[in-house]
């Protein structure tokens, strides 16, 4: 063997070993993570880049954007704190039955999107559910089961057809006195989408936002792999139902275990059907993945109320939307395009038939 070949061989062996031992010699990116309490939950943003100061600045700007949306949509703004003047939703509700209110582009857009889903679902998604939410105490009061008579009285006020939008004036008017909109089923997703846009605009290529369980990922992970996102088991928080692989997508879960109270052994959770004013009973949890986080947020509520059968029909009609249902019957059902995005974990509690 020639001497030349020998050195080449040794050189290659060393390369191989370095490869095997992991790329610890390659420069690692800067990772910056920050958490803030926002929109009634905890929001965490983790972003990667080359310069720590720049990444930090981007993350803080994203939080500022979310804070802005929080203030615009705060239904429970406090008088005398300056919050009231800033909260479009508070002002819209105060002016119900009286006059139209001029609002920000953001709130106008959210209400417009909400109305479009009201129409698409024949009223199964309705942001005018506010008075009924308050009756149950899912706003910010003591939670309790309302009397049927009380419920009927408030249900009259639930009707998104009575939200009058004026596109050129950017005004919103609730026609009946006592009507209240609640943007709880869209605001968090919208704010997350806005925060993600801020990160992208500042040049961030790899980031993950977790807004109280609503996940939005930007790009791939720094190592080029898809982000691996677990779906929580709705009955055992220590387990996962499955693991999603996401690239540039949002995943939002709605579940009956997120906000609830129990009375006489029955669970009353916060996702109310706009048809009955009572907690919807078809679903334990539903996870939606799609590009836009606001859309994912709305759809998770819509599909939760619809249940897996009707819900899947809707998902199959929508482009770029996939869903995974954990039904009240302990059946896991996924949409057709989900199979290459999720690994369902084997479990004794739930049954899963990949072919539907």
């Amino acid at each position: 063997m020639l001497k030349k070949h020998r050195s080449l061989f040794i050189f290659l062996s060393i390369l191989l070993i370095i490869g095997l031992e992991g790329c610890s010699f390659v420069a690692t990116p800067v990772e910056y993570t920050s958490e803030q309490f926002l929109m009634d939950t905890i929001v965490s943003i983790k972003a990667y880049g080359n310069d720590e100061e720049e990444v930090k600045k981007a993350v803080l700007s994203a939080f500022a954007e979310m804070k802005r949306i929080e203030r615009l949509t705060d239904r429970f703004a406090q008088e005398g704190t300056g919050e009231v003047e800033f909260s479009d939703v508070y002002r819209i509700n105060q002016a119900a039955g009286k006059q139209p209110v001029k609002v920000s582009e953001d709130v106008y857009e959210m209400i417009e999107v909400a109305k479009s889903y009201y129409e698409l679902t024949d009223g199964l998604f309705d942001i005018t559910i506010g008075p009924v939410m308050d009756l149950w105490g899912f706003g910010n009061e003591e939670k309790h089961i309302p009397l049927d008579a009380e419920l009927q009285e408030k249900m009259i006020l639930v009707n998104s057809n009575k939200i009058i939008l004026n596109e050129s004036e950017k005004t919103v008017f609730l026609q009946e006195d006592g009507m209240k909109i609640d943007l709880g089923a869209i605001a968090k997703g919208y704010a997350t989408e806005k925060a993600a846009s801020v990160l992208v605009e500042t040049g961030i290529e790899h980031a993950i936002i977790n807004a109280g369980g609503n996940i939005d990922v930007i790009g791939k992970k720094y190592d080029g792999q898809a982000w691996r996102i677990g779906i929580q088991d709705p009955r055992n928080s220590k387990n996962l139902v499955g693991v999603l692989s996401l690239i540039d997508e949002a995943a939002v879960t709605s579940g009956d275990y997120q906000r609830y109270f129990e009375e006489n052994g029955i669970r009353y959770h916060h996702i109310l059907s706009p048809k009955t004013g009572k907690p919807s009973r078809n679903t334990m949890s539903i996870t939606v993945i799609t590009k836009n986080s606001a859309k994912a947020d709305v759809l998770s509520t819509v599909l939760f109320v619809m249940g897996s059968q009707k819900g899947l029909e809707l998902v199959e009609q929508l482009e770029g939307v996939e869903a995974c249902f954990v039904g009240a019957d302990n059946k896991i059902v996924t949409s057709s395009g989900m199979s290459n995005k999720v690994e369902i974990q084997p479990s004794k509690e739930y049954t899963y038939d990949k072919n539907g």
Partner: protein
Amino acid sequence: MTKMDKILMLGVLLSGLIALFLVKGFHSQGQSVVAIIQVKGDIVETIDLSKVEKAKDLHIQGAQGLSIIEVENSRIRMVESPCPDRVCINRGWIERSGEAIVCVPNEIVIKIKGNDESIDDITQ
């Protein structure tokens, strides 16, 4: 290829493999369960739960008042917190990597860090 060449090659490969196992070994060492407690996003306590021998209470000042957190060997929970809906207390014990207890009103988060790096986050 001379005999010396073969010995040299084998030697290089072997030492590489030994180094590989040493590195991997160091990585997987310490199956520690570390809990971190955050107030308003800042870490105020870091506890290695696997090293806790006797149960103890931690008093943590949050945004609204005092929260009491109980620590045992390998697990942690919220015992008292000045919040109306008691979501954090009802959450019970947490022990696995990735689990968390959040008290939104008092702005306290208890999280278990761990070696589970197969998951980046959880949608819930």
